[in-house]
């Protein structure tokens, strides 16, 4: 622990948010700005016969109306996918473009058909209602597995069986043989339901074209401004990247849904060029529900084989993954490289095979949502383990402890090579589960549970352990797996002449508190005051490049890039200090913001060295003036946080309502820079994960209508659904990055979902119920209790 590293430093960003001075995209008003309203399809699948914009164009205050034909006439195909996953037989992934406005047929409810641009948002809204679209409705398909069947309606006419790709990983023959030989095979068929990310700030974008300088500014509620700029310039609009500035100001939550390059971003930039005025688009919530990329939506069959002693022998998985109507930026890698590769879990499973078929459906696109693939993998494994324990009459904690990979630190012994491509960095999986059991008083609680059962009370205890791959990712590795981008991070540390420090990071903070955490790292390493460090992010004009924030990568990758730049500052500073102190660099030590000649009282302060670098009168020969260092950090491996979550629930036997009584989360995210912020990330993730277990789920009807597309219908987790969350940590440092950190942003959402479902099934252990479809609403739980063999 340093002066700042490891301390619960209060956040420097809080004041602006607490006083109403945050600056989100929709808060920005530019001179002469216009407002866009997008005309969206009410049908999931329909041919467009005609679009009549004449009445809308005549409406007073309307500036312009554009349709899919205007976009097509401009030669713009659409937004691309960022990751190529090919078929098993080598055929290229099917990748139909996602047009900014469609001209031929709509493929999901919410597909964009036209845009009305007006002097006010009210006029734009009124005029949008006057756009007459003649649709010819077609049959729709919404289910991932149904879509692959012969005869299913085709979302894209040139994509047979709606299949984007099929993909397999692991040793299929060995897995089949091991399953055949197993003494006990536990099987589950389930749906990991579709979720709507629901960041509380709806997405917004402003395009601002300057016809004199011929440059563009895009303000957008994005987690990923530089990648948006690259994709939009190079692959969508064909405009020069150096003429485009992308600003992601304060962003009101993302959870993955704001990683991707959305059509609306390119549309406002294109339209701004066409009309010569700024164009703002802000989603209404109902629009967010049908256009923000959704999460999860896997249909899975999973089988796990054990020997007679409960040793795991094999895992076989078949998953259909719903891509929605178009491929969102990272959609294709989620069910494969973020899901299939995580199926080793924490266990020594010697044979694993996973098969994934990704399909197009007449639904909103699906992509990474908090956890992205790892929650699906964890749900699968942890449900199987609890199910197997129940079937084999073993304690679920014991069965896990028996099958965990033994502890390894990744330094004195190598990382753990899985059966599914990854090499884990370091882990102590027993440690987290034992600590969680201890916090819970597991044995005591089991006795209480048995006592309560005698009185007709249904208490359940559900365990879930997880591992995830974060710190995404070594560029060469992901490149070989189909990624179309590098996944390093950039940082610039600029020492001002007075010794104050400006840090420019390619990571993006939208709630994670980077302005505080990164400043803690910098202040600690440089030995300067926290208030002397300013962290700048989210603007392509000031930050050279960035790969954005997702996959819990900011500290592990972005933080490491900052450390690289700090190291360069300190190396140069030492040379200047040695010159000033008339000593050799080797004789200096740096501590508390001073270089000192070892064993003497001769020293020079950091600020004096900084000033010397900018006023180089008495200066080392050949040394460049200034003190400003940029770095790129490309990680050697992913990082692998892990943890154990335990939920305690009580089920009302009369109504099926689930009451979450306790939630214990023990997470190992490697070294911790700010424990207050890490705990906050865990709390938020846990509630999102419990949301999936108990409350949330997008529901499409057979016509492809999202029937719960508003906050009135989609059940969001609320404050009174939860107890206080009990958190603790173990610390197993990451051996391959300079801070030893692993990432904490998604852990809560990964571990918590199966813990709660397992707890409910444990409460119903007398009812012979081995699965209830999420979310576990009172109705579903009650129905399961009636249908089970009580």
């Amino acid at each position, binding site marked *: 622990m340093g002066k700042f590293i490891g301390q619960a430093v*209060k*956040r420097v*960003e*809080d*004041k*602006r*948010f*607490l*006083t*109403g*001075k*945050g*600056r*989100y995209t*929709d*808060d920005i*008003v530019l001179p002469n700005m216009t407002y866009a309203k997008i005309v969206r399809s009410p049908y999931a699948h329909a041919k467009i016969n005609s679009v009549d914009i004449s009445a809308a164009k005549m409406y007073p205050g309307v500036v312009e109306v554009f349709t899919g034909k205007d976009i097509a006439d401009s030669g713009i195909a659409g937004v691309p996918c960022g990751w190529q996953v090919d078929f098993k037989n080598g055929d290229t992934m099917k990748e139909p473009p996602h047009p900014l406005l469609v001209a031929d047929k709509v493929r999901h409810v919410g597909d964009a058909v036209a845009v009305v641009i007006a002097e006010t948002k*009210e006029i734009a809204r009124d005029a949008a209602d006057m756009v007459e679209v003649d649709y010819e409705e077609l049959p729709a398909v919404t289910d991932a597995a149904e879509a692959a069947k012969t005869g299913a309606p085709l979302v894209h006419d040139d994509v047979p069986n709606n299949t984007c790709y099929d993909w397999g990983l692991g040793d299929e023959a060995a897995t089949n043989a091991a399953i055949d030989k197993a003494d006990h095979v536990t099987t589950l068929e389930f749906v990991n339901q579709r979720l709507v990310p*629901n*960041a*509380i*700030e*709806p997405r917004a974008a402003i395009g601002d074209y300057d016809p004199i300088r011929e440059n563009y500014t895009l303000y957008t509620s994005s987690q990923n401004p530089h990648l948006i700029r690259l994709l939009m310039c190079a692959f969508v609009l064909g405009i020069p990247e150096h003429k485009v500035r992308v600003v992601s100001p*304060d*962003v*009101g*939550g993302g*959870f993955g849904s704001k990683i991707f390059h959305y059509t609306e971003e390119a549309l406002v930039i294109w339209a701004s060029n066409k009309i010569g005025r700024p164009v703002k688009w802000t989603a*209404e*919530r*109902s629009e967010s529900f049908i256009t923000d990329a959704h999460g999860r939506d896997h249909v899975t069959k999973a089988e796990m084989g054990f020997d007679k002693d409960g040793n795991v022998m094999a895992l076989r998985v078949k998953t259909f993954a719903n891509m929605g109507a178009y491929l969102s930026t990272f959609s294709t890698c989620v069910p494969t490289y973020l899901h299939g590769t995580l199926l080793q879990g924490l266990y020594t499973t010697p044979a694993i095979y996973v098969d994934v078929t990704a399909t197009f459906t007449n639904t909103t696109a699906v992509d990474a949502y908090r956890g992205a693939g790892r929650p699906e993998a964890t749900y699968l494994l942890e449900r199987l383990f609890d199910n197997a324990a129940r079937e084999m009459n073993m304690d679920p904690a014991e069965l896990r402890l028996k099958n965990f990979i033994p502890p390894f630190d990744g330094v004195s012994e190598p990382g753990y090579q899985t059966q599914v491509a990854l090499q884990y960095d370091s882990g102590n999986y027993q440690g987290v589960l034992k600590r969680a059991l201890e916090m819970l008083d597991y044995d005591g609680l089991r006795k209480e549970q048995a006592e309560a059962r005698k009185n007709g009370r249904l208490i359940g205890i559900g365990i879930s352990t997880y591992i995830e791959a974060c710190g995404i990712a070594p560029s060469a590795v992901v490149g070989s797996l189909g990624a179309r981008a590098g996944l390093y991070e950039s940082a610039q540390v600029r020492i001002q002449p007075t010794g104050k420090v400006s840090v420019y990071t390619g990571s993006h903070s*939208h*709630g*994670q*508190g980077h302005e505080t955490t990164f400043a803690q790292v910098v202040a600690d390493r440089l030995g300067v005051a926290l208030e002397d460090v300013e962290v700048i992010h989210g603007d392509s004009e000031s930050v050279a490049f960035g790969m954005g924030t997702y996959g819990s990568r900011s500290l592990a990758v972005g933080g490491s890039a900052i450390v690289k730049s700090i190291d360069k500052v300190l190396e140069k500073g030492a040379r200047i200090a040695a010159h000033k102190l008339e000593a050799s660099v080797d004789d200096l030590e740096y501590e508390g913001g001073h270089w000192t000649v070892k064993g003497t009282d001769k020293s020079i302060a950091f600020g004096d060295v900084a000033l010397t670098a900018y006023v180089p009168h008495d200066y080392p020969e050949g040394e460049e003036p200034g003190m400003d260092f940029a770095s790129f950090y490309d990680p050697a491996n992913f990082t692998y946080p892990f943890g154990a979550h335990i939920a305690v629930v009580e089920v009302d036997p009369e109504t099926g309502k689930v009451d979450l009584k306790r939630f214990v989360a023990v997470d190992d995210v490697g070294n911790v820079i700010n424990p*207050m*912020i890490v*705990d*906050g990330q865990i*709390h*938020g*993730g*846990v*509630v*999102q994960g419990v949301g999936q277990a108990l409350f949330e789920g997008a529901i499409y009807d057979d016509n492809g209508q999202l029937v719960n597309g*508003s*906050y*009135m219908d989609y059940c*969001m*987790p*609320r*404050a*009174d659904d*939860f107890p*206080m*969350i009990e958190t603790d940590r173990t610390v197993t440092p990451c051996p391959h990055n300079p801070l030893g950190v692993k990432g904490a942003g998604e852990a*809560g959402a990964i571990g918590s979902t199966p813990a709660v479902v397992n707890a409910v099934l444990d409460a119903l252990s007398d009812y012979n119920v081995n699965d209830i479809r999420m979310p576990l609403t009172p109705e579903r739980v009650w129905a399961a209790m009636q249908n089970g063999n009580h």
Partner: protein
Amino acid sequence: MGVSVKVTVNGERHEHEVDARQMLVDYLRESLHLTGTHVGCDTTACGACTVLVDGRAVKSCTMLAVQADGAEIKTIEGMASNGDLHPIQEGFHEEHGLQCGFCTPGMVMTAAQLLADNPNPSEQEIRHALEGNFCRCTGYHNIVKAIQYAAKKLS
């Protein structure tokens, strides 16, 4: 079709001709440039737009600006005085009750009414009072603690 509206917002009197259909939140954000009050849903569900109207917490996305004629309104911008954070704001800072900050103004204003009505609420009473305010970041845990902090400080 302008309608005249006179309101006092954060102690300042304002008079504007507004569109009869304009929502109070749009009036605050667009006419008064008080962008601390946010729109999260348009359906009175998420609470990001919560302000105090004559001391009562109101979701300003579903109240017409004209309905506020003659009212005293307080927004997040009016909570701090002389540069000092209100104890509720201070509680959110001390207890890490905010992450992205988008729901925060609504949470603070809702907490203001709760603590005015019930200066010493239990954890369950706090959770119940927050039922109409969504937060996707914090899991509510530290928001509850922030309000407990403020209750203690105010008592």
